[in-house]
């Protein structure tokens, strides 16, 4: 199997995983798939897909400028591939953005609802326009293939004529939005780490984008040449690296000058996560590439050249990630939850990149992006490999690829889809905490304090002597079950529940009913199940004739959705207990403080810290505040 086919197979597998993640994201929302939170609303998708993607695609306008404006014709042979990379990069940005936006189907709103003060508005417009420009710049390559179609060849002619204006327009638009991506963060001076936030952030972004553009062209060219076993343009790439040296030096001066003039130098040598990230970023972006590009001995070795360019690319992408979310102070200090992308976020980003790469390979194989098309793609030699018993022949490469790739895609999709944990989706961020049952007739053991110890509760006495109607406490009795406990309905400590047990009524061990024995059949005919539930549902009394004692006053509940155990305790039980205390002498003697909060919450502030719910945060403690203790 050829290199390129192996690589494509990997890309298809990633694509399969990404599709599974993408579907989950659109069914269950961002919370289920990402590690984003209210403290870190922007994460990997903005940092890598959008900001990184836009920066990675900068090669398009840089090479176009060199080729068409500065008259450096030697770059002509790589300009098509660079423009294609840019175009696909921007398409990838838009696709990535569709995943990140909460309401992606409203993305066109930017066209009709204007807020020109917003940097994001400007970025959005520029990206849209530049995408169009790139499309028009790349179109001739596609149209070349159809010289016989009159209309298309006409368009081709027009496009070649207006190429220079298009290139100039593209450079203008790129300048704007490459820098405006930096402007986005001007508005959050205290959110970003001081080593990154700067009033000249737009300029820094623009300069670094040009550096990245140059190095990305090197990486893209060498990678694809390696994959297609093709000689790469050593000359041109060497020239690019020499240009990159000056730009990188400028960037280095700019960056440190900015930090020192602003007075942020004190942050440079702290022992903190933010500072480490800064030095890592700078080492990748500037130091490694500079060393390699300046020393001619290293520069002339393809491996080192590749390493330098790759390091630069990683560095500047890391810069975008740092600005986009990693070095936000809510992330670095203990004030918020720590953000690191979930594997679903990573896989979707990887999937978008894979898609762009596959599209890139498609164009390379089918259109004349390079001066000559890669060999052995169009026609297969008329041979069949030697057969031994282990050999499997799946047809010509194209067919075999199709079969293998789709198979890998399906399996990868299935595995990823299976691995997306149901917990993340269904618990809504919380473990279920079942409440233990305690049944009894005359005397019940209630874990009223929820401290693991049972409390004796003279149940019979309440019914016989105090003559409280059961419904007062057992607002909804279950059939033939006269001592329903709180937990029967409030069956989760923190989550809402269902007082009517649908599962029991339908299960074989329970009532073994089907839906239509209680609900009218016309729910099938379009009547909303949720809309008018009372109208289409049979009353409990129709089946359970002996549901309530004759003399009981029952509070009729309008809904079967029950509060969580904690909520119910505060609203219902405590009130009830209070009333009983006022009336009864016996209980007052046995448990004088039954209605006191301190029974359940002996130490309110500490209590929360012990509890699972509140383990995560240390600062900004939030508790459900009980009335002040005396």
């Amino acid at each position, binding site marked *: 199997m050829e290199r390129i086919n192996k690589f494509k197979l990997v890309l298809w597998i990633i694509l399969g995983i990404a599709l599974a993640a993408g579907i989950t994201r659109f069914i269950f929302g961002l919370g289920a798939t990402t590690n984003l939170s209210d403290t870190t609303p922007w994460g990997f998708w903005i940092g890598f897909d959008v900001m990184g993607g836009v920066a990675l695609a900068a090669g398009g306008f840089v090479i176009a400028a060199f080729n068409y*404006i*500065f008259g450096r014709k030697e770059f002509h042979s790589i300009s098509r591939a660079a423009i294609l990379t840019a175009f696909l990069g921007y398409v990838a940005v838009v696709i990535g953005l569709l995943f990140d936006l909460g*309401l992606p189907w409203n993305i066109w709103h930017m066209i009709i609802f*204007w807020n020109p003060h917003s940097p994001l508005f400007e970025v959005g417009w520029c990206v849209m326009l530049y995408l169009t420009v790139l499309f028009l710049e790349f179109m001739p390559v596609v149209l070349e293939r159809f010289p016989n179609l009159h209309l298309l060849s006409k368009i081709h002619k027009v496009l070649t004529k207006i190429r220079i204006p298009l290139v100039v327009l593209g*450079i203008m638009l790129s300048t704007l939005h490459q820098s405006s991506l930096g402007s986005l963060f001007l508005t959050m001076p*205290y959110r970003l780490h*001081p080593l990154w936030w700067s009033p000249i952030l737009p300029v820094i972004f623009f300069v670094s984008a040009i550096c990245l553009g140059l190095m990305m062209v090197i990486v893209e060219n060498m990678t694809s040449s390696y994959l297609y076993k093709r000689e790469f343009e050593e000359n041109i790439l060497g020239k690019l690296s020499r240009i990159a040296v000056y730009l990188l030096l400028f960037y280095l001066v700019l960056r440190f000058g900015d930090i020192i003039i602003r007075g942020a130098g004190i942050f440079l040598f702290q022992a903190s996560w933010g500072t480490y990230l800064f030095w890592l970023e700078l080492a990748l972006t500037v130091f490694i590439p500079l060393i390699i590009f300046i020393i001619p001995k290293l520069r002339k070795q393809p491996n080192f050249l590749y390493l330098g360019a790759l390091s630069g690319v990683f560095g500047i992408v890391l810069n975008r990630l740092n600005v986009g979310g990693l070095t936000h102070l809510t992330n670095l200090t203990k004030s918020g939850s720590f953000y690191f992308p979930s594997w679903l976020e990573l896989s979707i980003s990887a999937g978008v990149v894979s898609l762009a790469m596959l599209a890139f390979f498609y164009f390379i194989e089918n259109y004349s992006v390079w001066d000559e098309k890669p060999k052995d793609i169009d026609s297969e030699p008329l041979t069949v490999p030697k057969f031994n018993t282990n050999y499997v022949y799946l047809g010509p490469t194209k067919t075999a690829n199709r079969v293998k790739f789709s198979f890998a895609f399906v399996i990868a999709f299935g595995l990823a889809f299976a691995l997306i944990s149901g917990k993340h989706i269904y618990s809504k961020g919380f473990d279920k905490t079942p409440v233990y049952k305690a049944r009894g007739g005359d005397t019940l053991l209630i874990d009223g304090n929820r401290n693991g110890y049972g409390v004796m509760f003279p149940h019979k006495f309440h019914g016989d002597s105090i003559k409280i109607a059961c419904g007062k406490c057992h607002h909804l009795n279950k059939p033939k079950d006269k001592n329903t406990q709180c937990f029967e309905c409030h069956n989760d400590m923190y989550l809402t529940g269902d007082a009517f047990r649908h599962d029991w009524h339908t299960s074989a061990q329970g009532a073994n009913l089907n839906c239509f024995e209680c609900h009218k059949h016309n729910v099938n005919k379009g009547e909303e199940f949720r809309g008018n539930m009372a109208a289409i549902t049979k009353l409990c009394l129709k089946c359970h004739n002996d549901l309530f004692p004759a003399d009981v006053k029952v509070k009729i509940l309008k809904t079967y959705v029950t509060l969580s155990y904690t909520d119910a305790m505060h609203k219902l039980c405590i009130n009830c207990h209070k009333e009983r205390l006022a009336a009864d002498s016996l209980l007052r003697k046995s448990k004088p403080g039954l209605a006191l909060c301190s029974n359940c919450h002996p130490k309110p502030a500490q209590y929360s810290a012990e509890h699972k719910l509140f383990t995560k945060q240390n600062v900004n403690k*939030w*508790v459900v505040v009980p009335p002040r203790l005396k």
Partner: protein
Amino acid sequence: MKAILTDITKCIGCTQCVSACKVINKLPPDKPREWQKNDGLSARNWTSVLFKDEYYVRKQCRHCIEPACAAACPVGALHKTDFGAVIYDSNKCLGCRYCMMACPYGIPRYDWDSAVPYVRKCIMCYENINNGVIDQPACTKACPTGATIFGEREDLLIEARKRIKNEPDKYLDTIYGEKEAGGTNVLYLTSKDCPLDFLFYYNNRIEKGVKLLGEPAFNQPYPPLTKKAMNSVPFAFVGMGAVMSGLYWIVKRRQKLEKENKGAEDGKNQ
């Protein structure tokens, strides 16, 4: 402009304001989630009461006079009304969450668990007051101790100053919201034991008290931070275009001249 004044010293933490808010805005019951900031605010809780050093601090949207969120929103889904509230139009929103990033108080919350999520925050009961359903926000109305009150901003500032003047031992001599970030429509009075700096991102700084060049002052509004960059956009656009066209012209001319020279030389040689 209307405003809300919350006196921390008077709050008893009964959370009546929280309930009232949920009732009037028809918010469903809340469940704690992993993705919440855990200050009690969420897409289903637009106000909350924090327990801080024996005091209760109510948290809600500050309704800045010059709101950063409204300036940031690319489609203008958030905007400042003359009434004083910063309100949200869910029909325009496209879910970019730039408002959440831009807010210096970290207030807007997101429907993370919904497939159709919106940004949620206090809107000062704007619509209900506008429609005449209520005459003041539900939270101030529900407060049993008068710890949080509603009125014209100027009146409330006068009232606040009066309280500080009357009991200088009890109150900290700052009205939070008077100046910070250009002033807000939600004002706080607090006890000397409990400064409220923690509500503001300014105080998330690692090195407290370090003021770097270019960073906005404590009382500086936020929208102008990007305005400068945005104002230079047309110049950058036209300038870049001019430079590029000029370069192109020069390069082309030079090439042409070179060619002519070469041609002339060739001619000579021949």
